[in-house]
């Protein structure tokens, strides 16, 4: 369903050149939930932005359901729902009006927009906020509205970049429930996160990315086996190579040693 083939992404030129991704290859099957783990600056967001056609690869190719993300970007976007932690909502429109706007953009019939909106409002537990201006929303409420917008056109592929970032525990739970529901409905999900428990609970397979390259891919069991670590957090630190000063990460197993 989703295929990354030797994908590299370079930002800037000359001395300012930054290689965000370097020959990344992986596939995600239909109905699969794929977790992308990695520290800040590892290349998670770049990977997901490339997949959602917001960026173009410098080298390599990405396909979604056989469609090229560069040559057939509009068709790809038609099939995906994208949510990123760096998205924001402001302005005088309410969530209802925004749902209507994005429904229109996706050429959904008016009645169908209303039906889908009502279902999403219930699922997202938005309550009366649905009719209020989004500029008055809390972070959590904005995230719910953004999820609603991403799912309104009922995409087959859902790409969530850090979906629980900055959320309180209650809103975080609502988002997790949504992800579980999508999983049960057979949707294909790619979720980037640095919260290990989410990855453990939800993902069929996990890829750990660090410094622009995929270091390991597999099911939880396969990762435990390959790294020899007892849980995902230990496996994560083992894969990224432990403590580095610039990142400030501490390899707990090394500490203990």
């Amino acid at each position: 369903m989703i295929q990354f083939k030797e994908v590299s992404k370079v930002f800037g030129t000359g001395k300012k050149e930054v290689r965000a991704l370097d020959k990344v290859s992986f596939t995600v099957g239909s109905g699969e939930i794929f977790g992308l783990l990695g520290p800040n600056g590892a290349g998670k967001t770049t990977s997901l932005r490339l997949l959602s056609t917001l960026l173009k690869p410098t080298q390599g190719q990405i396909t979604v359901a056989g469609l090229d993300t560069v040559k057939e970007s509009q068709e790809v976007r038609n099939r995906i729902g994208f949510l990123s932690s760096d998205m924001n909502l402001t302005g005088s429109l309410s969530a209802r009006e925004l749902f209507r706007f994005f429904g229109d953009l996706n050429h959904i019939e008016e009645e169908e927009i209303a039906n889908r909106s009502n279902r999403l409002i219930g699922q997202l537990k938005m309550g009366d906020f649905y009719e209020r201006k989004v500029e008055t929303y809390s972070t959590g409420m904005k995230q719910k509205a953004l999820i609603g917008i991403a799912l309104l056109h009922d995409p087959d592929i859902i790409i969530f970049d850090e979906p629980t970032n900055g959320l309180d525990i209650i809103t975080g739970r609502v988002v997790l429930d949504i992800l579980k529901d999508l999983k049960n409905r057979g949707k294909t999900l790619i979720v980037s996160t640095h919260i290990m428990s989410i990855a453990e609970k939800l993902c069929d397979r996990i890829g750990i990315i660090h410094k622009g390259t995929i270091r390991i891919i597999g099911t939880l069991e396969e990762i435990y086996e390959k790294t020899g670590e007892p849980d995902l957090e230990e496996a994560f630190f083992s894969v990224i190579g432990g403590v580095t000063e610039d990142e400030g990460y501490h390899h707990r197993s090394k500490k203990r040693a």
Partner: protein
Amino acid sequence: MKDIITVLKKELRNVLKDRRTLFMLFGVPVIMFLLIFNVMGEAMKSQEKKLEETVYKVYTNHAAFVENVFRDGMTKIELVDGTDSIENDLRDKRFDLAVVVEGQMDRLSDLFKDETEISIYSFSGSMASERIARVFSSSVNLIRDQQLRLFLTEAELDAGLLDKPVIKSINIATEKEQAGATFGGLLPYLLVIYLFTASFSVGFDVTAGEKERQTLTILLANRVSRSSIAWGKILYLMLMNILSAAISVVAFLFGFSSMIPQTGSMFTIFTPGSAALLFLIVISLAVLIAAFITVIGIFARSVKEASAYSLPIYVVTILFGILGLQSEIFQSQGVIRYIPLINGIFTMKDLITQPRLDYVTVAITVVINLAAAALLAFLAAKMFSDERFVFRTGN
């Protein structure tokens, strides 16, 4: 096209619910123009009245002469003493006028003696000082003429020689046309300012502002093509520019009419033809400015940066607007009509001030501006599809 209209409608819905922006775009120009012109009109009237009623303080070394000059009592004066420095006293407003008479002057006929010299000191920083100096000079000239007439009559010569040749000044412009001349210079200047002002607030908000607030990504991740997003935003900005400029002009016309009521309604200076042509030029300018602002807004990292980029063009345009206010340095029929944006200022001026409509110049102005706007809009659509610009933020 459907997607473009959807984006346009969304932006319009958003702004229609934003009372503060609506007030700034449409309410402020109306209030500002009506208020400014009314306050200006009242201030001018009260200033004139005040100057007529003022008792002017005059310093002189020849009180009898000065009192004689003002003997008609139309202008009230009070003779005052000064210090050693006339200049300092004038600046300190100890008096409004100083008259220093050199030479013996016991009678008015002494005005013609070689040694007679009258120095009139005034301070142009004070309206009262300027006015009393003007009144004094013209009164002295009047007395001199009267004395000359007396001499000529006594010498049995024809005093009527002083009235030769007969000079008749005939201004064929009606009062309305004279008002139109003033208005014609002012209108293009104000229009351009308002077209830019509306663009700055609304245009940068939906381009650089959205990038800065990170609200653009959600739209870009949707199935809608990026050129549709760009065109939707450009059309929205064009519409807001035209509406804001039209309301500003109407408010200006009402305000101007209320300040100079003797001109009647300023709307009468337009014929249906000139009003239609003016509207065409305004549309072409609004479209061009919208496209320009959109390109700058997409390129810039932030609203602040976008404002800095557009400032030079804005300043140059305003400078040409000021030139259009008072001079005939540039003729709209010349090379200037091929320069986008600037051509609009001079063509609008000619349209209001010239008796005959120059359809060719208007057509060239509109076509040049629309062509430049189309070029910029095409560039804007391309930039919206380019990650180097849409993800170029200061964050």
